[in-house]
């Protein structure tokens, strides 16, 4: 009977495709939007993720995220270094500046100053240049997404001259990192250089980056630094989360994506619900005949479940496939999707949404079939 149920459905091409499309569309919309949402949120934490070796970020008590920073006094570095359990601590600067490009355009950038000697704070992977190139005077490295904003596609940025705060800067490397939430161009340079590139003169230490000595837990080090220096300290994970939370609390992103995801769900219910009930209506006489002939309700249930389940499986599979294609093609062709990935929870969540749509519409359809009196076929 399951075979008959499946043929009843797949033989009705229009409705079958409509149903599969409805589920696939919902799946695509929900998966794709959730993926973009999660990855956008993660971009609130890219500056933290990009620096792998740091255990603890130390900052002014009012600083909140990588980009919402109040500068520290320069004494903070030695204060942190003197806390027991600190293996090393280095200065780190993040500040906004305006850069004049070779074409004469002005572009807002984030200047990141990394430790002069160890270069801690510089992301690990370079697309062009070597780490040593940053030691050359006036050297800056540009992030690979920012590079597309500063320079035309066909121009090799290596060796290009920029003007920052009336100072000369020369691009000598390209850093492979995921862009930040604002996608602003990031220029990496040595800390001492950075001080010349950003306007203003005093208190331009944004963070002190610290590493815990072996055997000291980052959480413990945070506690020690805070009690001993009066500064704010966050573990790497907590500070990354702070960046994400800031976006959640200060932008309309969660609401916007929430609305789209809800729409995907509602459209799915609407298309699938309507089409499935049309399908049942068209076949109600056949179902009635089957009941009269002697197909009991348990088998009828299994038939409708098989029909709904088939639609759900094919539609979900297609939808996930399309969403994956979308994300990977997007990641390959557009810097806006650089580094995007789909965490496994998202397809699972989508599966749950699809299951809800299928169960809801299947249940309504089933009730109609079960309510049909076998005697009605003689009418």
């Amino acid at each position, binding site marked *: 009977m399951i075979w008959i149920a499946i043929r009843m459905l797949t033989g009705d091409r229009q409705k079958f495709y409509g149903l599969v499309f409805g589920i696939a569309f919902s799946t695509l919309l929900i998966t794709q939007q959730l993926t973009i949402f999660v990855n956008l949120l993660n971009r609130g934490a890219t500056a933290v993720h990009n620096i792998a070796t740091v255990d603890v970020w130390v900052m002014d008590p009012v600083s909140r995220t990588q980009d919402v920073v109040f500068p520290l006094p320069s004494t903070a570095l030695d204060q942190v270094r003197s806390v027991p359990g600190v293996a090393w601590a280095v200065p780190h600067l993040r500040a906004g500046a305006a850069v004049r490009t070779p074409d004469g355009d002005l572009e807002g950038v984030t200047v990141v100053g990394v430790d002069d000697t160890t270069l801690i704070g510089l992301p690990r992977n370079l697309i062009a240049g070597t780490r040593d190139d940053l030691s050359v005077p006036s050297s800056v490295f540009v992030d690979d997404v920012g590079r597309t904003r500063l320079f035309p596609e066909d121009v090799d940025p290596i060796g290009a001259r920029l003007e920052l705060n009336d100072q000369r800067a020369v691009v000598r490397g390209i850093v492979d990192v995921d862009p930040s939430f604002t996608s602003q161009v990031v220029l990496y340079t040595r800390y001492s250089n950075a001080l010349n590139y950003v306007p203003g003169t005093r208190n331009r230490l944004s963070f002190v980056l610290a590493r815990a000595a072996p055997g000291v837990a980052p959480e413990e080090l945070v506690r020690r630094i805070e009690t001993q220096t009066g500064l704010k300290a966050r573990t790497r994970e907590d500070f990354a989360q702070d960046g994400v939370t800031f976006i959640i609390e200060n932008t309309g992103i969660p609401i916007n994506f929430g609305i789209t995801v809800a729409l995907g769900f509602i459209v799915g219910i609407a298309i699938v619900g309507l089409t499935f009930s049309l399908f049942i209506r068209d076949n109600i*006489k*056949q179902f009635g*005949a089957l009941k009269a002939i002697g197909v*009991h309700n348990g088998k009828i249930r299994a038939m409708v479940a098989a029909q709904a389940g088939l639609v759900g499986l094919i539609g979900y599979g297609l939808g996930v496939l399309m969403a994956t294609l979308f994300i990977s093609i997007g990641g390959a062709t557009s810097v806006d999707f650089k580094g995007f990935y789909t965490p496994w929870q998202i397809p699972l969540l989508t599966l749950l949404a699809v299951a809800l749509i299928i169960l809801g519409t299947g249940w309504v359809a089933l009730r109609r079939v079960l309510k049909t009196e076998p005697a009605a076929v*003689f009418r």
Partner: protein
Amino acid sequence: MSGCADVTDNGAAISVTGIARDFEAGGQTLRVLHGIDLDVQAGQLTYLVGESGSGKTTLISIVAGILYPTEGCVRVFGTDIYSLSDRALVEFRLNTIGFIFQQYNLIPTIDAASNAAVPLIAQGMNREEATERGRTMLERLGIGDQAGKLPSQMSGGQQQRVAIARALVHEPKLVVCDEPTAALDAKSGRRVMDLLREVAVASDRSVIIVTHDNRIFDLADRILIMEDGRITHDGTDVPANER
């Protein structure tokens, strides 16, 4: 109350005793069958005729186990069918009764042989064997060459023959047909009735046909006429004034 507790089994293939049926309509209770008694023997083709609204469909629905009577007893080959559980009654229909509907009610997306095989598939027979038997039954009904066609690719008369194949494929002991020729032209209708006479009737089977079609009365072993929920004539022919 319905049931056969007080009715002894008289051995007839179908035995209907004191059947009444009420319908609720517009807040009123309407009695459409008034204490019907009827025995039908195996090996007979019985016609049930009468004006529209006289209760023919209601009566064969009750006889066929798809509509509960308000009062009375129905025995089908000895089984008090309305004392069965819902599940057992469904099972009983599947094994004992063949149905032919006015609107054929074939499944539009499977071919004729598969449609004819539906009761066997529902009984749990594997699909290949069931379809093979469906095809054999179609051959007996003269449409073996149509076995691979979808219902929409066949004429009304051919579709009704597929429906007849479906009603007979599992060799039920009772076959009920409600106006099987009503949607057909005279020629195909006659052909369908001839086939029912030739193929459906068997020594251990009763066939009951509700029909309007008075050109084909000559095929019946017995003719019942209903008026206003009562059987008013019972014989091998119809009275001259009904012809």
